[in-house]
Every structure is written in structure tokens, then in C-alpha cells.
């Protein structure tokens, strides 16, 4: 049964409801974005005050040519892919376990929400202390409790360890939400499908592959998109834990944007990097929609 579309009172209601939100977002979200976008085509350096000519793609050329760009792109991709993959896999495993009913599973379902509740900054700081190369507890564990190493390692100072080190807090924080999403996804799959499959002789793995995964497509899509955006935009951990180092092994695009805007005081360059980050985000999102076609983004059962 469909409503008659476009009744005057409907239109009025709709307009009144949506306009404040849209207007608000336009002022505080879209306008700054457009401003940043425009900025990326201008020369806006601290050392040339008052002169902001349009220099078209010069900022972009400078960014791509810069000392930090190659590392920034590589690190951002590594970080994002790493974050998405690990969050996805670990959340999947955890959620499958938590979907079962066993003693304590209720408590565990509560526990799993904890990392999500902790603010990024609070988490970054305790991780900094955990990773401390002179007095940190991770080192203490791996040297005194489960002797894996002879001496304290430098987690945030070795090129090999630094990237994994900043991935861990990111993964830690993002898992709860994805576990939740998976769990809700499981609850939408009718048990009857599983029963029928069991009767047909399918084992657990086959059931998982043929029923669970396909039915979860919208959820998987949401998780992939959201975690990718979170991964690309992630800033707190580089900021607090490594400062972009050692060397440039943890210099990501978001860190580079911050450096360009506030360290180099070249807002044109900073804006250009931000635009590049946005383009990368959009490319990933487009990829996901290609690879996992569903009817509509996020709107299940429309």
C-alpha cells in the first residue's frame, strides 16, 4: 500500500523535519569541506601572507613530489588494509563464538563492548605506557613472565615493530562495533535455513560459507566501508605513540596533513593532502560496492 506522494502537508512536514539537519550540516560540514577543497588550489603559505593566488594543481604536484608522500601513501594503505583485515577476521571469530550460548557468554558479550567505550585519547596514552621501551609492561611480560625476548624491545622505535604497534590500538577499539554488527547480522538469518542445510548433509563450514556469508552481505559492506574510513582517518595513535617515526615508517596521510597544516604552515598543501585522502576513501568505497553488490547502502528490507 503506498501513500499518495507529495501531499502538501506531507511535503511541509518533510521539509520542516529535514531542513534544520541539512542546513546545520551544510554550515558545519559541507561548507568547511568546500573551503578546504578550494584551498587546495590556492597558494596559502604562512610565509606569503595576504597573497593567495590560484595555482591550480601546483599544491598537488608539490605534495606528490615531496619527501614524505611516498611513505605516507604506502603507510596509509598498509595501515588501512591491515586494520580492515584484522578487525574483520578477529571480529568474525569473536562473534561466532559469542553467538553460541555457553556459560559466561552473556558476560563476554558485555565485556566485548569495553574497548568501544574508551575514548581514543585515553587509549592512546595507556598504550604508549604499555609499549614503553624502558619500563613498559609489554616488555616486562615478554621478558620476565613468558620469556620470549632477552631484553626490552623498542616497540615504537623499531621500523619493523612500529607499524604493527600502532595497528593494535586501532584494531582493539574497532572490534566491539564489528562484533556487534556481526551478531545482529546472525540474528537476522532464519534458523530454518540452517536446519534445511543440516538435513541436506552440509557440515558447519559449508553452512557458514553458503548461508551465513551471503546473508551477511549488507553487514559486511557496512563493516568494510566504515573500517576503511576509520583506518584512513586514524590520527590519534600516530600523534601520541610515534610522531610519524621511526624514520617515516608510521607517517600516514592524516599525519602528513597535520604536519603540512600546522608544522609547515602551508594550508594549501594540507588541503591538497586531505583531498587526496578523500579520493582514496571514495575509491575504496566504490570498490566495495562493486565487489559486494547489494540492493541499497545500509537500508535492508526497503
Amino acid at each position, binding site marked *: 500500500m503506498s501513500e499518495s506522494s507529495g501531499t502538501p502537508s506531507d511535503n511541509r512536514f518533510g521539509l520542516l523535519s529535514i531542513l534544520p539537519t541539512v542546513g546545520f550540516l551544510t554550515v558545519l560540514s559541507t561548507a568547511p569541506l568546500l573551503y578546504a577543497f578550494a584551498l587546495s588550489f590556492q597558494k596559502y603559505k604562512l610565509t606569503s601572507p595576504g597573497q593567495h593566488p590560484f595555482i591550480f594543481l601546483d599544491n598537488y604536484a608539490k605534495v606528490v613530489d615531496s619527501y614524505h608522500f611516498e611513505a605516507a601513501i604506502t603507510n596509509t594503505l598498509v595501515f588501512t588494509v591491515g586494520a580492515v583485515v584484522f578487525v574483520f577476521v578477529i571480529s568474525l571469530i569473536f562473534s561466532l563464538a559469542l553467538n553460541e550460548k555457553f556459560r559466561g557468554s552473556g558476560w563476554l558479550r558485555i565485556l566485548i563492548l569495553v574497548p568501544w567505550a574508551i575514548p581514543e585519547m585515553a587509549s592512546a596514552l595507556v598504550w604508549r605506557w604499555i609499549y614503553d621501551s624502558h619500563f613498559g609492561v609489554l616488555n616486562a611480560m615478554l621478558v620476565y613472565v613468558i620469556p620470549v625476548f632477552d631484553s626490552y624491545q623498542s616497540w615504537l622505535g623499531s621500523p619493523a615493530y612500529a607499524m604493527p604497534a600502532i595497528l593494535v590500538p586501532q584494531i582493539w577499539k574497532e572490534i566491539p562495533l564489528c562484533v556487534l554488527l556481526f551478531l545482529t*547480522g546472525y540474528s537476522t538469518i532464519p534458523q530454518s535455513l540452517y536446519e534445511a542445510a543440516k538435513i541436506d548433509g552440509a557440515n558447519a563450514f559449508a553452512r557458514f560459507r553458503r548461508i551465513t556469508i551471503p546473508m551477511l552481505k549488507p553487514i559486511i559492506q557496512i563493516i568494510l566501508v566504515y573500517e576503511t574510513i576509520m583506518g584512513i582517518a586514524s590520527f590519534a595513535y600516530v600523534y601520541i605513540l610515534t610522531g610519524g617515526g621511526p624514520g617515516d615508517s608510521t607517517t600516514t596521510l592524516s599525519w602528513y596533513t597535520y604536519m603540512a597544516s600546522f608544522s609547515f604552515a602551508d594550508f594549501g598543501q594540507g588541503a591538497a593532502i586531505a583531498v587526496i585522502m578523500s579520493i582514496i576513501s571514495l575509491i575504496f568505497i566504490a570498490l566495495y560496492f562493486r565487489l559486494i553488490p547489494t540492493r541499497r547502502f545500509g537500508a535492508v528490507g526497503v
Partner: protein
Amino acid sequence: MSINSMRQGEALKKTALFVISILIIVFTLSPIVWMVICSFIPDPELYQTPPPFFPTKLYIGNYQFLWGKEAVELTGGTPGVFAQARDMLTSVGNSLIVGISVTAICLIFGVFSAYSFARVPMRGSGKLLFYVFFSRLLPQVAILVPIYVIIQALNLLNTLLAIILVHTAFAVPFFVWVLFVYFKSIPQSIEDAARIDGCSRFQQLRKITLPISKPGLIAASIFAFMTSYNEFLFASTLSNTIVSRTASATLTAVAQGMGRYSVALFMACDVVAILPPLALVLIFRKQVMEGLVTAFRR
């Protein structure tokens, strides 16, 4: 399938569940547990190898400092440097004010918007919906300076209002989306019945939809609150006076002014900062889950 292999399967499953349970506990709790332990140890004792894993005595000096007592056992630096930590309680209060205000604004405007998107047929509503989501897709670092300029133009620097406005802009898209999906999942028949009885849209919303949407509303509100409480970049850039500093901003200050030494005091600050969101999530965990579940159920 033979009984034996079924039993083996069962045993395997049980072991796997047990292992994963341990992993979950260790994984989720270890940073928090260590944070709490460190906050109850006097600072000089932390700088040892190995650190005291299980302190025999609970030292409350760090918390007393936050509550206004005089300088405690701190390594290095001079007492004046730790003044930032004293703001911790005020900042948590500020964060709560901001979070609640953001949630309130979202509830007032976001509910109507989500409802309209979900139920009211309007030309272009799909495009507008996408527009609302879109703002969240792009990196926040990019708009830091433009937002600063706007807030300055409105003469709102160093006020909580500025942070409330900016955080609302961040929280609204997700809020609207969660409610949109939630409302969509409510069978239309109930509302249609009310429509036939002559209810206006507004009355429909108020009398029918909202009462049965409580879990969704709570879930969306919690998300909005969390988004706000979590945010530190804009909060610390836009206002940094004691009156208007949020918990995350003070933590940033503390980390940089103080995380270089006196880790114990800093851990105490951290614990205080995480209590409100933790409590919120633990109290409302049911609604959070229900909100999402109902939204996705066909």
C-alpha cells in the same frame, strides 16, 4: 555421522570456545586493568624492571591529587607542571555537558529527519539522505582550520557551545542513519492504521512510532554521546581554557605536559576520564544491542 565424530566435534567446539573466551577477556581487559593498577601505585615505583604487577598496597595519592590534595610522590618536574591534572574532574564534567547536549540536539532534530527520510515520500529525499551521510566519509583533519575560522567568526572560541555544535555535526549523520534504518524496519501497517484514523504525521510519530522505538532511540543516542566524548582533535583546538576543556582535551594536555613523567598520576586521570562512557555502555548494553538487532531484522 557417527556418535564418536559428533563427540569429537563437540569437544573441539568446546575447546575452541574456551580459548576464544580467554582471548576475549585478555584482549579487551588487559589495557584497562593495567591502567587501573598503575593508578594505584606511587609513581617512582613504576620505573622499575619489572614493574609491580600486583601491588600489595593500594596507593590512593594519585586520586587524592585529582581531588585537590597537595602534590604527591611524583618523579621529576616541579609541582606546577602537574596543575593540568587538577582540571580532570572539571573536564569530565564538561564532556558530560557537551555529550548530553549533543544527544539532546540530535534527538530533537535527528528524530524528525530520520522519520521523514524513512516514511515521508518526498522528491529528492534519497539524495538528501546520502548528503547527510556523506559528510562523515571524509577525513576530519581536513576541516580543522576552516571550522576554527567559522567558530572564531561566530565569536564562540573557548566556549562549550562551539564544541557542542561541532560534535553535533559529527554525530548527526550516524544518528540519523541508525534511526532511519530502525524506523524503516517498523511495519507500516500500524502507522497506516493511525493514518486512516486521521492522525497527522506529527501525531503518528509521537503516538505510534516513538513509543515502540525506544531501543533504537537509546542506541542512537548512545552512539551520539560516544562520538562526542571520544573526539579530541577539535575539542582541544577550539577551546582550551579550564572552563571549557573537555575530558579528551585535558587528557591530550596531560599526555603532552605530563605523560613524559608521572605516569601514575596520568593513569589516574585516564581512569577518571573513562568512567562515564564505560558506565553508560555497561548500563545500556541491552538497548544498544536491541537497537541494532531490530533495525536489521526483516
